[in-house]
């Protein structure tokens, strides 16, 4: 899978609304739990887990597995690479919109 669309510079990985949502959230929060993400994005466990895995495999997310009492509490935070990719994606979006105007 090509990471960048050669024409626009838009990141293919962020084409998906849920992945884009996850990245927006981790950009402004130091860390956020799986359940908070689920609540904010209004998606099912399975759906969210798949997208989180994609983002993790691309090196955009750091995963911390912990416990609250006996329950697992998985939190996510953004990596340097993720931050850069997201910012580039935003600049590309901006350019596209200005370009068409």
């Amino acid at each position, binding site marked *: 899978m090509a990471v960048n669309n050669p024409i626009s510079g838009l990141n293919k990985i962020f084409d998906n609304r849920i992945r884009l949502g996850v990245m927006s*959230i981790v950009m402004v929060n130091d860390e956020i739990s799986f359940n*908070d993400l689920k609540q904010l994005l209004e998606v099912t466990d399975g759906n969210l887990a798949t997208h989180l895995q994609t983002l993790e495999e691309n090196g955009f997310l750091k995963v911390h597995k912990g416990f609250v009492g006996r329950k697992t509490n998985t939190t996510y935070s953004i990596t340097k690479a993720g931050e850069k990719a997201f910012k580039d994606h935003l600049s590309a*979006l901006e350019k596209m*919109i200005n370009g068409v105007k």
Partner: protein
Amino acid sequence: MSVQNSHLEALQDIRQMMQRSSRFISLSGLSGIAAGICGLAGSYGAHLLIQNHVKPYRDVYASRGTLNDLDISLFLLALATFTLAVLSAFYFTWRKTKKDRVALWNHTSLQLAWNMILPLVAGGLFILALLQNGIWMFIVPGCLVFYGLALVNASKYTLSDIRYLGISEIILGLIATQFTNRGLVFWAIGFGVLHIVYGFLMWNKYERKADVA
């Protein structure tokens, strides 16, 4: 055109998610108004208590030394006012979260609560220490300044307008340090009038249209 629209939509999504995930925006202006009314009522109650107690003395507020037996009743009144104010503030914000279909206790509201409580507890303990040593004159300025700092701190996790309420409380508290014999007046302005004014401004800015629609 549709490509451009989808990009605009993506940007709107991003902005909404960034805001919704980092700020608790369901704080209701009506909460401020309700807390302000409790504050004013409490101040008036305290005024009556003090007046009844020191009737024989000429200057109602300057005769702090005679207030010792009043401590308990004033303290209870303050506690009741505070409880009522917090409960009513919670009620209106809870109502708004229902309308916005968000949870009252989520990641953002917990962050908001924590950042508010930390300076408040520090301030509360500090003021109790003042009381312990009988330093009455700095209680009102202390409450206002610490409360203002708590609001400024909390404003990063909710509607940013709260910041200006916080700054107003701090300024008022600092002015109050120069008029320590008129503490109750500053108390009523800070916890009553300012809450009502800001509550109304915020209700007007964020909620009025939604309520009418």
